[in-house]
């Protein structure tokens, strides 16, 4: 019991002091996960509405790809991006290996299928009467998607929340392509792995607590956006 009490006290101390190292990790986490979510949402939501608003062979193939992508292990996504940005790889010239940019690419790769899949599911869940009215309006493809997305607004917000949740909590992809370099590519999840490995549980817990607070704040914000009345 003494162990837990002390651990708790140390965790609180670490949080209260909130040193420059923690600040830097938190900032990079928000930057990488936020940018990856943004890219994931900007690509995934239009992709999801395209998948849901029509039937064709190419759409069926993409739908399958998105579903598989939703279940892809982050570490595998990291490996694929690692190969891509490796010095001799297709994007080797860009010198992205072990940079936040590579981490953003890897996480965006994880975020896109989630955003697309949740968006498509929301639109496909529209009442048949809504789908028929949408068809009857005879709007262009983009305008149809806009009306459909506004109609399933809570589903769109869920897509954003799911994409952010997926990337902010994953450790495999950022670890593989970022390398967990202190002060350069260390984020909250990789920092937790690091501290846990060194048995510095108090610091690890402090990182974990901050991660949960970030998740809480983001989700409270998204819940407010979702409940916006039209």
């Amino acid at each position, binding site marked *: 019991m003494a162990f837990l009490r002390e651990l708790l006290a140390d965790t609180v101390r670490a949080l209260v002091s909130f040193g420059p190292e923690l600040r830097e990790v938190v900032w990079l986490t928000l930057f990488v996960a936020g940018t990856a979510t943004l890219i994931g949402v900007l690509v995934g939501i239009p992709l999801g509405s395209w998948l849901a608003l029509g039937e064709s062979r190419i759409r069926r193939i993409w739908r399958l790809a998105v579903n598989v992508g939703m279940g892809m292990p982050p570490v595998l996504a990291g490996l694929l991006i690692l190969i891509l940005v490796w010095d001799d790889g297709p994007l080797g010239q860009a010198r992205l290996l072990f940079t936040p940019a590579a981490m953003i690419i890897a996480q965006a790769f994880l975020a896109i299928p989630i955003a697309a899949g949740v968006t498509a599911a929301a639109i496909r869940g529209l*009442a048949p009467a809504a789908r*028929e009215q949408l068809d009857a309006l005879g709007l262009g493809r983009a305008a149809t998607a806009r009306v459909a997305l506004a109609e399933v607004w809570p589903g769109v917000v869920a897509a954003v929340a799911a994409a952010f949740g997926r990337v902010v909590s994953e450790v495999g992809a950022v670890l593989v392509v970022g390398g967990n370099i202190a002060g350069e590519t260390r984020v909250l999840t990789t920092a937790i792995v690091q501290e846990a490995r060194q048995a510095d549980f108090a610091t690890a817990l402090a990182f974990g607590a901050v991660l949960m607070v970030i998740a809480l704040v983001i989700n409270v914000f998204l819940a407010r956006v979702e409940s916006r009345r039209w």
Partner: protein
Amino acid sequence: MVTLRFPADGSVLDTSLDLAEPSRVVVFGPNGAGKTTLLRLLAGTLPHGPSLESAYLPQTPYVFRGTAGWNLGLGLDAEEAARAAHLANRLRMSERLSAPARELSGGERQRLLLARTIARRRPWVLLDEPLGALDAQDRMQVARVLVEELGDRGAVIVTHDRDEAAVLGEVLAVLIDGKIRQVGPVAEVFAQPAGAEVAATLGIANLADGTVQAVDGPLCAVGVGGQTVWGVGDQPDGSHVRVFFAAESVTVFGSTDQSAGSARNRWVGTVEEIRPAGRLVEVVVDAGLPVVALLTPGSLEALSLQVGSEVAVAVKATSVRVVPA
């Protein structure tokens, strides 16, 4: 002639319809006859249809999140939007345009979407049960606006409601089991159904076109085939109108019986035909205009009616509808 077949083997719908000239075509039929499928093929929301250049209003008046006004303008250009606003005003929706569309009643949603659909600049308008969600007192008023605003544009209107068909149609097409069994001017199809199945589908209705001869408060007198028919309607004197009433509302008397109670319409004529209608009997009387009455076999016997019998028929004026022809 446009061919309408769905699916490819025609198991749901396999028929054709003449839409060369724009007119208001009512496709009338029982539930499951294929009416909505026919309309969807014309609208192009089902594949392999003739896809008429049209504005389509599906059966369920679905409104999207947003204000009623936003829904009204959805997909319309500036000119169409102005027309939609005018139509919304005529359909008494102007006051409701700032309300969230989700707070509208079913009837209000229908009127809103009717305004949007008719406002579109398309040669054809396709309406699926357009008066379906409206309450009784709204129906006639909305029907009149519809007929006026459609003008000489073409419309294909699907309904299973006899009154709706009578009010909205110029041409009536009777659809049974995926096939159009009869097409013709509305009055003609009602008067001379092609076969027992069509007659049973139409129900036994009395319908005729005539001219208003006099107006008396809520009633007007309509001249039809040398007879005067009193009915409820506010059409101006001299206007061309359609009158219709149900066979159930016709009472038959012996010709010597002078009583007709409060019925304003009492005509004398001859029994032309007596035919079974399920457990009841239809009696067709030539009274200057053909009148179909629905009787019980008991009444038939009590009056000892036969083909050729002299009878009087009576209908309360409040059972007779007078609408613009």
